[in-house]
Each structure stands twice: as structure tokens, then as C-alpha cells.
């Protein structure tokens, strides 16, 4: 019988600065060649468990270990990162900091340089992996010259080149557009099969990861393993819902339609899920629900006419872009990695200077206003939380804007506390920000802007790396702001279901202009646009097609509507 390659026995870990253990009673065996998905709420200890596998714990993160853990034969208590690095390859949560080379090719070859390989060897290996991950045309590019998605691939190449037999990915999909996300998952799966690698993936986007077979789904909660089984088994007794995690959409849909997951077979993929009464149930359900489409707002708030912008002359990023955002809109801005979504919001908020074009807010010329003045109307939450955090402690960070506007301490206290509660940070309010997980940091920055309640809010990928519970809390909060206080909200996102679920309007960016501006569901039924903007259909569409429902469009719309009603009744 084969030995597990990774094995935790009643394992626990407590960061030095923490007052209680972050990991408790972890019992986990992973066997060679298995593909394991690690899921769990934000802050539940996924990355921490990852750090135990690659040896960063205890070496780089001092803390107290209980129980035992062995990785590829090494006891992690007394084996160095160096020793483990031969058997474990890690792709960290943020590819930007992992990119240490001055150019793509150097970064791919980095570990070979450290192993003192000859230049000819390195060239060969780099060439091979660049071809595998189609990075060939980018080999000479600097890290600044490539988009988030591409960085991800470079990071993978730099790790795969080691040919180590355990691969660890910490949220590989967090900032990828749907298409690249799909591609990455397929790539990982392909390599894993080909070289019989053991793969551990930490990810919130279950649905995307499950597009390829997973052997073992491990669910963490507050540092303990609460589920560890074949995905199908865990999905069947809908553990995900109970933990406030998102289960794949098609399963929610089936349950809405009254199908018992217990009676279905191989439910871990929408392509295979089967059961005798599914079709009839779905048919009945769709027939039963009637759609009412809320009217879209029409009073223009922000009008963009013929915008042009380029970072360097030869390649324009924004090119003759026209867009009108109405008061009370809740719209999503989508498009492939590197089309210029962030760039556009930087132009609107004055972070970047327009080359030419016209921007009007309620008829007032935006281009005449300073960053500060624009910010009084338009709140902007950047993609990278670290660029916004200026205070050491969470409370001060959120209070800063109010204090600068000279509010009384009680007032500040009250509003900050309210916002912190909404963003699920209240219990951390006296923590230093440095001790937060990525998702938690992101929420701090959102809180810091929400607390100032501006007329319009631009959020750049607000839900990246968030779990369903916080995601729902936050989105509901935004929705209330939008519905009750007429706050206009623009979301930049790669999450297709977020777009369907919460926004009435989707603006698709491509080639520096607006490719399509319509209701989200219409966008996701337009093959050409999906192709061009690297979007992807959610499993709901596949489900609808597989079971020959009259109109996938209606089905999705109805699903979203029903869920929304359910939420508002809560």
C-alpha cells in the first residue's frame, strides 16, 4: 500500500503573535498523484496550512507547532525550506512579488541559476516551459509590461521548471479573467496527469476548479478540517452552504427546483450530473417562476465621450471610448486581463491624465477637478489593498477619512463601527493590519471608502479572494446603498455570477472601447463577445442547455431573481 506523500497527524499551529492557534487538530493524508482542493472561509487558515507544506512555517513564520506533519518524508519541524523546495513547488497568492527576475526569461530560470546550472541548460529548459505555457512571445518582457494573467503563467513556469512532484497553488485564479482561469485549471490538470504530480490548490472559486476532476476536497473552518472527502460526497450533503461557502451554481439551481442532491449521481460536474427527475423538475420550476425586469435608471450622472489614453505613444490602451453611467446604476465592467479596466477607472478618478476626450459629472467638467475634488463625488477602491492602507491599525485606517473631515469623535466612532460590522471586521477593529489575511485587508480598504458615503463608488475587483459569506454581506450592503440611497456603483470584476447576480447592466471592454453594453445575461449569451472579451458562461447555462430548457437566458434570470428574493426575505 502506498505511503501518503503529505501527512498531518493531530497537527496544530499558533502564530507567535496570535493568542489562540490558527490551525487545530489537523489530520490529513495526501497520496502521490492526488489532486486536492483546499476550501474554506477567508481567514480559516488555508494559506497557513499551505505554509506548513512548503516549510515557510515554522522557518519564516515563527510559532508553536503541536502534533506532527511530514512532507515527502521530511518532518516539517526540523527540515528547511531549502530541503522541501526540491519536492514542493509553490505559487504564492500574489504573483507580483514572486516575479523576482528583471525579465520573464530570467524569472523562469531563477531556481536553475541558484542550482548553478549552465547557461545552455537554462536556455533549453526555459524554452521548453515557455512553449508549454505559451509565454514564448513574452520572454524578453519586463514584469511591468505584462498583465496579471500573464504574470500568473510566468510564476507557474518558474515553479514547474524545477520538476518537483508536489505543486501548491494559493488562489491561482484570484485575479484571472474567466477564460484564463479555465485555461490555468486545465493546464494544471494536464501537467498533473502527464507527470503524475501531487497538486494542492487553495481556491474560493470552487465552480471553476471543479471543471476538472478533483480527488479530494478538504474544507477548513476556523483552523479545523470540517470536511474531507470526494467532492461529490461533500457537495451532496451540501456542507458548503452550511459553512457559508459557494457551492457550484448548478447545484443551487437543482435544489431550488426541488431536486434532492442525494438522489443524483456524479454531481461534481455540471457536464455529468444526472438523475431521473432532474429534467422535469427544472422544466416545472422555470414554468413556475415569472420574471419581472426592473427598469434601468436613465438620468445621466457621468458621461464619457471619445476618451483616448496610452501609457506610451505606440500602443493606445483606451481608444475612442464612449460611456454614459446613470444615477443609480449598478453596473459591472468586465473584460480580459489587460484590456484597461483599471486604467479607465484611474482616468475617471484623475489618477491618470486623459490624453483627450470629455468627462462630465452632472454636466460639470471632471477634467477641471483635482483628485481630491473628484474623490468627494466618486469613491475609488483600488485593486491592490496595500496601495491604500496608510495606518497601522484597522480602526484608524477606516476613521482617517472622517477625521480629516473634522467629525466629532463620537460620530467617527459610530460610523466606523457600523461600517466595520457591515464589512465583517468589527471583531478585528483593534488589530494591526499587518496580521490580516489578503481578503481581510481588501475589506478594510472597502470599509475606509464606504464610511465616507460618496455618490458613486468604483470598486476594482472587490470580491477577489473573498468567501461567499463576506462577499454576500458586502454585496448586499452595496445593493442597499444603491437601492435606498441611489448610490451609483461600478464594479470591475472577473466573476461572471457576481455580474449576473448583482448588476443590472454589464459594460464589456475590449480593444480600448466598449464592446457591448447590455443586461448581463444578454452578454453571456453572445458567443462572439464571450470569445473576444475572455468571458465564460456559468454552469447555469450549461445546465439549461443539457436539460433542453426553453430559454437559458430566462432560466438564469429567474434563478438570480429567486435567490435575490430569498436574500431580501432573510
Amino acid at each position, binding site marked *: 500500500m502506498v505511503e501518503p506523500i503529505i501527512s498531518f497527524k493531530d497537527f496544530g499551529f499558533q502564530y507567535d503573535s*496570535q493568542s489562540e492557534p490558527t490551525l487545530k487538530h489537523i489530520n490529513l493524508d495526501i497520496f502521490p498523484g492526488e489532486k486536492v482542493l483546499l476550501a474554506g472561509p477567508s481567514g480559516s487558515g488555508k494559506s497557513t496550512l499551505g505554509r506548513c507544506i512548503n516549510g515557510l512555517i515554522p522557518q519564516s513564520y515563527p510559532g508553536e507547532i503541536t502534533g506532527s506533519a511530514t512532507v515527502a518524508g521530511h518532518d516539517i519541524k526540523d527540515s528547511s525550506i531549502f530541503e522541501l523546495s526540491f519536492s514542493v513547488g509553490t505559487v504564492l497568492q500574489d504573483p507580483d512579488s514572486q516575479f523576482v527576475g528583471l525579465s520573464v526569461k530570467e524569472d523562469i530560470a531563477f531556481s536553475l541559476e541558484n542550482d548553478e546550472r549552465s547557461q545552455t541548460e537554462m536556455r533549453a529548459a526555459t524554452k521548453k516551459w515557455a512553449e508549454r505555457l505559451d509565454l514564448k512571445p513574452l520572454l524578453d518582457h519586463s514584469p511591468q509590461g505584462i498583465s496579471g494573467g500573464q504574470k500568473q503563467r510566468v510564476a507557474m513556469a518558474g515553479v514547474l521548471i524545477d520538476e518537483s512532484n508536489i505543486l501548491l497553488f494559493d488562489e491561482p485564479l484570484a485575479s484571472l479573467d474567466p477564460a484564463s482561469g479555465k485555461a490555468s485549471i486545465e493546464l494544471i490538470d494536464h501537467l498533473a496527469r502527464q507527470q503524475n504530480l501531487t497538486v494542492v490548490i487553495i481556491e474560493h472559486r470552487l465552480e471553476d476548479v471543479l471543471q476538472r476532476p478533483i480527488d479530494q476536497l478538504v474544507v477548513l473552518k476556523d483552523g479545523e478540517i470540517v470536511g474531507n472527502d470526494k467532492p461529490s460526497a461533500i457537495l451532496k450533503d451540501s456542507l458548503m452552504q452550511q459553512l457559508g461557502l459557494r457551492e457550484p451554481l448548478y447545484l443551487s439551481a437543482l435544489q431550488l427546483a426541488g431536486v434532492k442532491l442525494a438522489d443524483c449521481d456524479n454531481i461534481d460536474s455540471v457536464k455529468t450530473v444526472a438523475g431521473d427527475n432532474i429534467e422535469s423538475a427544472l422544466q416545472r420550476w422555470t414554468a413556475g417562476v415569472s420574471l419581472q425586469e426592473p427598469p434601468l435608471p436613465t438620468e445621466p450622472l457621468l458621461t464619457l465621450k471619445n476618451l483616448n489614453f496610452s501609457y506610451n505613444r505606440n500602443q493606445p490602451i483606451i481608444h475612442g471610448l464612449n460611456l454614459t453611467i446613470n444615477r443609480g446604476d449598478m453596473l459591472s465592467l468586465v473584460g480580459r486581463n489587460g484590456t484597461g479596466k483599471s486604467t479607465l477607472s484611474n482616468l475617471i478618478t484623475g489618477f491618470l491624465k486623459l490624453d483627450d476626450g470629455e468627462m462630465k459629472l452632472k454636466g460639470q467638467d471632471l477634467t477641471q477637478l483635482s483628485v481630491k475634488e473628484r474623490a468627494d463625488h466618486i469613491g475609488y477602491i483600488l485593486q491592490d489593498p496595500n496601495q491604500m492602507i496608510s495606518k497601522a*491599525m484597522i480602526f484608524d485606517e477606516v476613521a482617517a477619512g472622517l477625521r480629516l473631515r473634522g467629525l466629532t469623535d463620537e460620530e467617527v466612532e459610530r460610523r466606523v463601527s457600523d461600517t466595520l460590522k457591515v464589512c465583517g471586521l468589527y471583531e478585528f*477593529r483593534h488589530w494591526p493590519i499587518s496580521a490580516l489575511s489578503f481578503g481581510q485587508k481588501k475589506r478594510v480598504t472597502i470599509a475606509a471608502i464606504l464610511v465616507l458615503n460618496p455618490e458613486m463608488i468604483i470598486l476594482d475587483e472587490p470580491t477577489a479572494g473573498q468567501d461567499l459569506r463576506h462577499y454576500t454581506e458586502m454585496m448586499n450592503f452595496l445593493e442597499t446603498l444603491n437601492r435606498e440611497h441611489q448610490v451609483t456603483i461600478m464594479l470591475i470584476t472577473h466573476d461572471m455570477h457576481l455580474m449576473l447576480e448583482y448588476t443590472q447592466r454589464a459594460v464589456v471592454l475590449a480593444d480600448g472601447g466598449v464592446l457591448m453594453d447590455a443586461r448581463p445575461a444578454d452578454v453571456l449569451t453572445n458567443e462572439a463577445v464571450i470569445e473576444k472579451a475572455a468571458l465564460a458562461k456559468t454552469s447555469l447555462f450549461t445546465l439549461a442547455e443539457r436539460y433542453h430548457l426553453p430559454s437559458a437566458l430566462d432560466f438564469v434570470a429567474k434563478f438570480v431573481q429567486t435567490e435575490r428574493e430569498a436574500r431580501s426575505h432573510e
Partner: protein
Amino acid sequence: MNNKNQSSNSIRTVVATGIGAAVIFVLMKFVAIPTGIPNTQFNVAEGFLALLAALYGPVAGGLAVFIGHSLNDFVTYGSPWWTWVITDGLVGVALGLIKNRLNVTGGTVKTMKLVWFNLYQIVVNFVAWVLIAPTGDVLVYHEPAAKVYLQGVTSWIVNSVSVAIIGTILIVLYSRTRAQHGSLKKEK
């Protein structure tokens, strides 16, 4: 265990040197407030250097400012003004020597320590900018003493002030961000 941590630390030193140099370069380039006397400005960078050195020690401190300063001289003056670059490096080393005394990572730094730190840094800057740098200029570049010593005294003052204000604030703020051992508890 020990040797493992040593290897981590040596890597951290390498990275701290590189990133430190990058930050110092950028600060020198974009956030320097001129004083009126040529080649002497109120350098935010010196303040940052104090924190960097206090965190990562003499080697990182010295090298970081040496590299950052030379790169900055390279792209602004064409070629580094070696005597001053080297002096700056020495300041970095000196500030790094008190890493353990100051112990920024061990939680909030007491006022006494800060006072002591500032006295130390004023002396360090005096030795560096009033004694070493100008003397170097006289010996190496054979510039008139009066001129270089004036420049020296000015940079002594501005750099001490910069460290005293910005350096101190940074150290205090940073030490606050370091959570005490076992201090983090969720509050309902």
C-alpha cells in the same frame, strides 16, 4: 534550526538591501525638499534609512543607501559623488548597529529609547557629514575647505532633522504595527 534561520536572514538581508535601495532611490528622486545650498536637500530618504537599518541591521542599511544613492547620482548628476555616497553608506551602517538596542520589532518603542536614539543619530550624522564627507572632498577632489564644510554642516543639520522627525515617526508607527506576542484576540 539556527543555521536554517541564518540562511533565511541572509536572504532577507539581500532583499531588504535591494528593496531598500529602490525605495531610497525613489524617495531621493521625488520627495527631496531643497534647502537652497547646492546638492543638499531635506531628504525623506534619510528618515526611511533609519527605519530600514533599525529593522535589518548594518549590512542592509549600509548597502541599501550606498546602492540607492549611487543609482540616484548616476541618473541625476551623471556620475556618483563617491565621497558622499560612501559617507551615506557609513551612516547606514552606524544606524544599523543599534538594531538590537532599539528592537523595533519587539513592540512599541519607549520614549527614553527614542531620545537616546536621536542623540545617537545626531552624533552619527555629525561625524559623517561634518568630519568625514568634507574631509574626503578636500583630500580627493581638492575642493576649498570653506565650501565643502558649509555643505557638510548643512547636510548634517538637514539629515539629523530628517531622521529626528521622519525617522522617529516611522519607527514609532512601525513598532505599533508589530503585534505583541500572543496579543491578537477577536473581540465580540
